[in-house]
């Protein structure tokens, strides 16, 4: 079984809701013990992807595997080995924190200690509080504890730190790093580039249901960087004129965000001088000029066209 070597396999998975394509021929795999992030703008298909792996949705075509098993057919086996944190909800408002943990302890065959988990997510002082009285961030942390209580081999976290204050975010990050140390496979979705950059071994960037990039944050941010120069200035510069002045093809020049420009060329002294001369001729003030590593955020915005008018 070649499929069982990876913790997670998504193979050519397409899922539609009516006429809306949520994912389209999506393929990627996650190694055992890896922390894997799915990034993408709203509506990119992140939650659909996670929910196919959790067994809540079924691909119209293609297939998904978790620990070599089919999330639908082998649900009974998988549920014992997988932890889930939904993007929102899942908790009974009328239960107390300790009662929810006690319930979930009862559902798994070799559960973790609820007291330990309460301390881990820093809710030990709220154990007798009704869930409806918890803040959003506290509920997120309780959901995380419930996802952990069955000692899962694979854990799915759908926007785990959404709505958390900075302190709670750090606590959550620390827990995820510890999971990696313990050899647990983590698949998380996030909007936070800093989160992806500091936690994930690899990330996949989705846009409109399709995979547009995959790799380690470092790979994505350094790829082809020597061949790129970026600058900022006022928006809607005359790129045709600039391309001629720089002696490059028009297609090598993009305004990927209003006022943010990318030149697909090495930042040679000659290129910089030509740029400066053209800016003087046009009477345009330069904002910033840089070369070298991009941030993951820039990569993301570039690839997904986030922020552009669609």
């Amino acid at each position, binding site marked *: 079984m070649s499929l069982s070597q990876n913790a997670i396999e998504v193979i050519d998975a397409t899922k539609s809701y009516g006429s809306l394509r949520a994912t389209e021929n999506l393929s990627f795999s996650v190694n055992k013990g890896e922390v894997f992030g799915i990034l993408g703008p709203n509506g990119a298909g992140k939650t659909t992807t996670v929910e196919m792996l*959790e*067994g*809540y949705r079924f691909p119209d075509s293609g297939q998904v595997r978790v620990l070599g098993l089919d999330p639908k057919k082998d649900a*009974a086996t998988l*549920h*014992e080995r*997988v932890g*889930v944190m*939904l993007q*929102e*909800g*899942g*908790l*009974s*408002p*009328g*239960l107390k924190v300790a*009662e929810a943990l*006690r*319930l*979930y*302890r*009862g*559902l*798994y*065959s070799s559960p973790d200690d609820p007291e330990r988990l309460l301390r881990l997510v820093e809710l030990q002082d709220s154990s007798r509080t009704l869930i409806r009285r918890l803040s959003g961030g506290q509920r997120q942390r309780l959901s995380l504890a*419930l996802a952990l209580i*069955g000692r899962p081999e694979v854990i799915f976290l759908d926007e785990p730190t959404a709505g958390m204050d900075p302190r709670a975010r750090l606590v959550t990050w620390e827990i995820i790093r510890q999971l990696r140390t313990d050899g647990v496979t983590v698949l998380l979705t996030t909007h936070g580039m800093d989160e992806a950059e500091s936690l994930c071994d690899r990330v996949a960037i989705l846009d409109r249901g399709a995979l547009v990039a995959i790799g380690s944050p470092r790979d994505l941010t350094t790829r082809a960087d020597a061949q790129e120069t970026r600058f900022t200035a006022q928006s809607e510069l005359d790129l045709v004129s600039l391309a001629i002045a720089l002696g490059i093809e028009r297609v090598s020049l993009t305004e990927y965000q209003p006022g943010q420009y990318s030149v697909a060329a090495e930042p040679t002294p000659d290129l910089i001088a030509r740029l400066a001369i053209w800016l003087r001729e046009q009477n345009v003030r330069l904002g910033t000029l840089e070369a070298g590593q991009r941030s993951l955020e820039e990569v993301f915005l570039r690839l997904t066209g986030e922020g552009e008018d669609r």
Partner: protein
Amino acid sequence: MTTRRAVMAQTRVELILTLRRGESLLVSFLIPLGILVFFSKVGAVNTSLKDPVEFLVPGVLSLAVMSTAMVSLGIATGYERRYGVLKRLGSTPLSRGGLLVAKTINVVVIEVMQIVVIVATGVALGWELTGQFVAALGLLLLGTVVFASIGMLLAGTLRAEATLAVANGLFLLFLFLGGMAYPLDRLPDALASFARLLPPAALSESVRAALEGSGFPWSELVVLALWAVVMPFIVVRKFRWEE
């Protein structure tokens, strides 16, 4: 695999939540008891029976089953669906079947408590058993299947607020058409005939016949059994776990 331990853990939570919901206890205990005491004392019901309490005990037992199995279960499950609780449990080792068993135990436990309180109150008001109590319990169980199915159908197809409204509306309608607080023959003939085809009247009339020992309630039993077969079938097809 769903273990007995998992089902018991879920059952415990179901009972905690039920006992914590004041408004659902009001519907489950105070309304049936209030009707029993008020109508038997005030004598607002002029029945063909020698004593109103003979008429009311079977009716109120049926009402109690309806309140727990349809109203409480339906509303609670509807909100669990709204809050994503059903969805979240769906990725734990507790199977759908295990969840259903836990909910069934919860309903039956509350119903047993209701039956004890209602029978005790009835006896205090002078009620005497002349028929078969065990047969009546069997009928109440059959009624539970029907009303729980109606509650689950609402919970699994409507928004939580709509489930709340419709469950309470049906409760009131069924109270009027159910032969529970007053005899069906007080209704216009056409309406009474229609009411006899609905679950509440079939339940209360058959329970009454069993408790009085007044012959076997064939037609009521057939109506009730039909509902008990058809409703779960519809629920299984229509129930959606996510709102």
